């Protein structure tokens, strides 16, 4: 079971299933459901960025929402100014990456412990939230684009086919773009993790001192992983701004950061598929909660987080794996008896 999890075949299998689902979904569901599923996929990209930096690099980032929000705002501001969307998309990946590089430099080269790191990253997202919230006045603008403060930025132009601003993507094309991005990122990360660099990154997570004594500069590898996570989260933010043609400071909010953590914890730390499934399940749940008035979605997320940390610390997917292995293992044992 574990061997299969780590073999390239499991990555190929997951990607094949992903491609099949991507091709099948637009045939089966109506437009409304398709748009719903698109946002699940966008958030799954965010979840996978957190899953990578936390589960494989051991970086405790409680503020992944800052890169997500930065991506959303970068895309929105750039596309309003430029009109054509190719450059803004690239910027929305690069700028959060650069910010992650800068922040990561201070954290990793200052050799902060992971607990401090969690608090610092959480604080970064709060500061972004407060700062952007306060930019409501007309004097806050970048080029032609007002920042909008707590009102957010409405009517953001959608992504168009590269080089042709007159030809925006329709709902189905946008869904394909998001879903194939997710599949490509998943594949890319699986490849990275199985490569030499990936092995070093995981080794640093397991035992930083030992890896350093073997001659690897742990800080540089962590910085690389953190920056990559920032880029992926930025792309997710860019898609998010596209999805509703709207972004507001809530992308930086504590609730947003908490959600990402909940997805990873529920799905299972140390896997990439788990958080994707976790993110989709939790979003489906919060949408369901949104339709009724008795329970507040914060309340339910809080309960889920506490319960999982106390009772199911490994998350759903690894726990499921354990159960399957137990059942499977028993069968083998019985076979041997007979």
């Amino acid at each position, binding site marked *: 079971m574990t061997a299969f999890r780590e073999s390239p075949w499991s990555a190929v299998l997951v990607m094949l299933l992903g491609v099949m689902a991507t091709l099948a979904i637009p045939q089966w569901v109506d437009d409304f459901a398709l748009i719903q599923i698109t946002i699940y996929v966008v958030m799954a990209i965010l979840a996978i960025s957190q899953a990578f930096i936390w589960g494989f690099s051991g970086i405790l980032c409680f503020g992944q929402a800052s890169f997500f929000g930065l991506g959303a705002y970068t895309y929105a501001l750039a596309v309003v100014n430029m009109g054509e969307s190719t450059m803004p998309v690239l910027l929305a990946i690069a700028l959060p990456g650069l910010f992650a590089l800068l922040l990561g430099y201070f954290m990793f080269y200052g050799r902060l412990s992971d*607990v401090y790191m969690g608090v610092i990253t959480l604080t970064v997202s709060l500061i972004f939230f407060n700062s952007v919230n306060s930019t409501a006045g007309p004097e806050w603008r970048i080029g032609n684009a007002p920042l909008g403060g707590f009102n957010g930025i409405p009517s953001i132009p959608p992504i168009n086919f590269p080089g042709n601003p007159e030809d925006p993507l329709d709902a189905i094309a946008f869904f394909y773009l998001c879903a194939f991005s997710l599949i490509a990122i998943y594949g890319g990360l699986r490849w990275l993790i199985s490569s030499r660099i990936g092995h070093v990154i995981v080794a640093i997570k397991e035992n930083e001192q030992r890896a350093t004594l073997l001659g690897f500069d742990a800080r540089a590898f962590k910085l690389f992983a953190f920056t990559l996570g920032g880029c992926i989260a930025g792309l997710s933010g860019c898609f998010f701004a596209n999805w509703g043609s709207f972004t507001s400071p809530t992308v930086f909010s504590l609730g947003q950061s908490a959600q990402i953590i909940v997805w990873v914890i529920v799905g299972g730390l140390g896997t990439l598929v788990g958080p994707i499934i976790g993110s989709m399940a939790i979003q489906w749940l919060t949408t369901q909660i949104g339709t009724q008035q008795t329970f507040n979605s914060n309340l339910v997320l809080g309960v889920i987080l506490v319960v999982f940390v106390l009772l199911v610390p490994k998350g759903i997917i690894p726990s499921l794996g354990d159960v399957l292995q137990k059942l499977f293992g028993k069968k083998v044992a019985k076979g041997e008896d007979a």
Partner: protein
Amino acid sequence: MDLALIVSVQVLYAIATLVIISSGLAVIFGMMRVINLAHGEFLMLGAYSAIFATKAGVNLWIAMLVVAPICVGLFGIVVERLIIRHLYGRMVDTMLATWGLSLLCVGLVTSVIGNTTSGVSTPEGSFSIGAYSVSFYTMALIVIAVVLLFAIRWVLRSTDWGLIARGTMQNPGMADVLGISPTRVYSITFAVGAALSGLAGGLLAPVSGVVPTMGGSFIAKAFITVIGGGSAILAGTVSASALFGLINQLATFITTPVFGEVALFIAAVVMLRMLPQGITGRFFKGSL
């Protein structure tokens, strides 16, 4: 001259606020190595207890200084019993669980009370320095911060209880052998930290809008102060509050309150690059 005086009062006020909002967090982190991400919600609960008590006819000062800490302290005992106790030594899991608790509290209070701002009017009046007016409450908060620091110092240094608590944190096994139950000490320490947070919430109720999500606007500063201060509870809190309060208030004076907060944060990150253990990791070593 008047301007200089008013700016120094504002700086002192900023420092006092930092001391007040971070002392509860500092006690829990410094003594128990637990980072309580629900700290903001403890403040929020303290503020609500003060408001409800005032509405029920209790004197505002009693509501702020007595009712709020007691309510939140009791809540702290329950939280320690149900959640924190199972996670000692697992710092990351504690952070996650308290974060869950924070969401849970916000959700619960929002469902019960609703997402509206309530508040009490600022007590006492104001006096003037030249052309500027300063409220007495500002001065009261500065005095309370100083009293609070001396009280914490007195409890930790000069009472049996402080000695027992510090001893237990250093070596729980030895304390156990000497007939002191570490679980009880942990539980009381957490409750005291929670009560301090409740007090802070009560004191802030008159000067800030009380909403279920109010915790979010204070915790950034509180965390930065505690982490910047390092592991010594008193020396850390005081030195970090002084440094960050000064930077925050001067930047606020030049630009806006929000960018004052940004300046505080940037200063903290740059400082942590040089002093990863916080201020007391390098200076004032061995102090409380």
